[in-house]
């Protein structure tokens, strides 16, 4: 908490975010535990980790879909976690989301016009003609030929185009915050590059603040100003993109980076070895440091005490008892 030195111009602040799902029988899934991160206006925060690390749960909790179990989410001074009913629905136009599956993101039974116009309809903005005009503008902005697209249905478009349409829908109300949950993971590389470039372009043009969730470290580095690494619901390390990729200090970050398959035959392929074994269940996370069961540096201390988040350099936060500082 104090590790995240209070930035004056924080736009989105996520404080002690906790997400738990009841399982029945008194058990619960500890999806996210005490996650804290602050994002400045116009900044992109990347959130990486492997499956089950809680990054998507965190994203949904920021969206209040559903509301988190604990913690605070504040957007531009307005505490979203405190809003209810109509107030929350009204506030929703300021933060929008793009999902992983481009096809499933669009209702197969509606036309592209209706899909992209839905935010305007819900917010009750404009006449039907005005809405259509606005939809056409948005489609052109995301690189979809609006003349041909308006009356078609999603199945007539490729995955990449569907994702562009999703982006148009998310941005039509001019939100301040865009949350991208694995937004390019289902796309082929060549199309993925198109969509990433589009997101970067729109971010600059519209002054968006972004929360970008992905399992792909290379993709995250491409769009993010700062990157947070999560493991089993907890933050491991947070720093600006350049630093975290060049000088990772958390053993998990280092392992993750060493495992990325580089498209270069001469790249170093030695992966920092983990202790073999299964990823522990988020129903029953290990005591102390959650990574300790697979960490080659783990000691008895790691089992006993939860590592506190420490700022080891300006803006470089790590939660580890034995960070790899040379």
């Amino acid at each position: 908490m104090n590790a995240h030195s209070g930035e004056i111009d924080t736009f989105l602040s996520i404080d002690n975010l906790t997400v738990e799902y009841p399982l029945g029988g008194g058990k619960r899934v500890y999806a996210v535990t005490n996650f804290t991160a602050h994002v400045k206006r116009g900044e992109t925060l990347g959130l990486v980790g492997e499956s089950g690390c809680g990054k998507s749960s965190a994203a949904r909790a920021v969206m209040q879909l559903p509301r988190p179990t604990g913690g605070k989410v504040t957007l531009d001074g307005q505490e979203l976690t405190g809003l209810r009913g109509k107030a929350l629905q009204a506030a929703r136009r300021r933060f929008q989301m793009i999902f992983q599956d481009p096809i499933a993101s669009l209702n197969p039974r509606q036309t592209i016009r209706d899909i992209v116009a839905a935010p305007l309809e819900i917010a009750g903005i404009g006449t039907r003609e005005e809405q259509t005009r606005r939809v056409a503008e948005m489609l052109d902005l995301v690189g979809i030929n609006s003349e041909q697209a308006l009356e078609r249905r999603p199945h007539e478009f490729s995955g990449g185009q569907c994702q562009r349409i999703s982006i148009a829908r998310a941005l039509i109300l001019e939100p301040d915050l865009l949350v991208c949950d694995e937004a390019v993971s289902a796309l082929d590389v060549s199309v993925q590059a198109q969509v990433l470039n589009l997101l970067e372009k729109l971010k600059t043009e519209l002054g968006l603040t972004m929360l970008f969730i992905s399992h792909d470290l290379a993709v995250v580095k491409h769009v993010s100003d700062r990157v947070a690494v999560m493991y089993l619901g907890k933050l491991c390390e947070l720093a600006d993109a350049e630093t975290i990729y060049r000088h990772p200090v958390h053993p998990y970050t280092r392992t993750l980076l060493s495992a990325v398959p580089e498209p270069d035959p001469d790249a170093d392929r030695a992966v920092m070895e983990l202790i073999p074994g299964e990823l522990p269940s988020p129903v029953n996370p290990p005591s102390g440091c959650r990574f300790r069961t697979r960490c080659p540096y783990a000691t008895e201390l790691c089992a006993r005490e939860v590592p506190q988040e420490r700022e080891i350099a300006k803006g470089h936060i790590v939660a580890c008892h034995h960070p790899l500082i040379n």
Partner: protein
Amino acid sequence: MADISQESGTKSYAATPDDKAAKHAEAIAHFKKRNKFGLYFWIPMVWLLFVLFCAVFAPLFGLPPADEIDWMYIKEGPNEVHWLGTDSLGRDMLSRIIYGGRVSLTVGFAAPFIGVGLGLILGMIAGYYRGWADEIIGIAIDTWLAIPGLVILLLFSVVFGGSLFMVCFSLGLLFIPTAARITRAATLNYAGREFVLAAKALGASDFRILTKEVFPNIIWPLIAFILIDIPIAIVIEGSLSFLGLSVKAPTPSWGGIIAEGREVLSTSPHIAMYPTLVMFLTVLSFNLVGDAIRRRLADVREGAI
């Protein structure tokens, strides 16, 4: 598609461009033909239209009334006065079968709509809201299922009596559990889709999500379900009237005529056999037509996703 044995690669498309084009056309034609409406659709359809026509315009045919007793002909086989013969009371079989068709068809169309309509609402609520609403509806459905359908109908007919409306309504109730289950499963499936999340993220109301996002997607399996239910409703009404617990006598109904015919099966089999044949053909036709339409719907849906 799921053929697990055709892998030896014996099929091959021919080498010359002409042959190739021909094979090509053949393959596509085969694919398109798959679910076209063929004779299995049109022949039963013609029969159904014929039965429907007879039932609707029955009073215009100048038939003897269904409860008029002809003392000259009792338990007679087909003859020039009574084309399908008479029953053991000397009533005209043709007239009885046609008027009986009115009951069967009314129930056949009305009951599934009542049941699916109510089931749709319950299923959507259970599938979308989950939690205690789901739990309560689930228990209600399980309870309903635990009593045999015919027993429910018997109870209703004892308690409420046998008007046509009550028969339609109580039969409709029998379709609620399955309709609700189908709707619930489909709603669950779509409620987790990302386009529904996107709508929630936009602040859409639950009503809007259910009507605009979910409903258009789940209506097709339900239409298919109604198609299956029509013949089932006719069959159940037949069973009920066979037991004498559907519409009150002397209003004729197919099941009732068959029950009367059973008593004299060894001496005058025609009394049981004609309505049996008509009912069988009608139910079979509904099944065949329904199946053909369902396949077409499935095709349309596949093409749309």
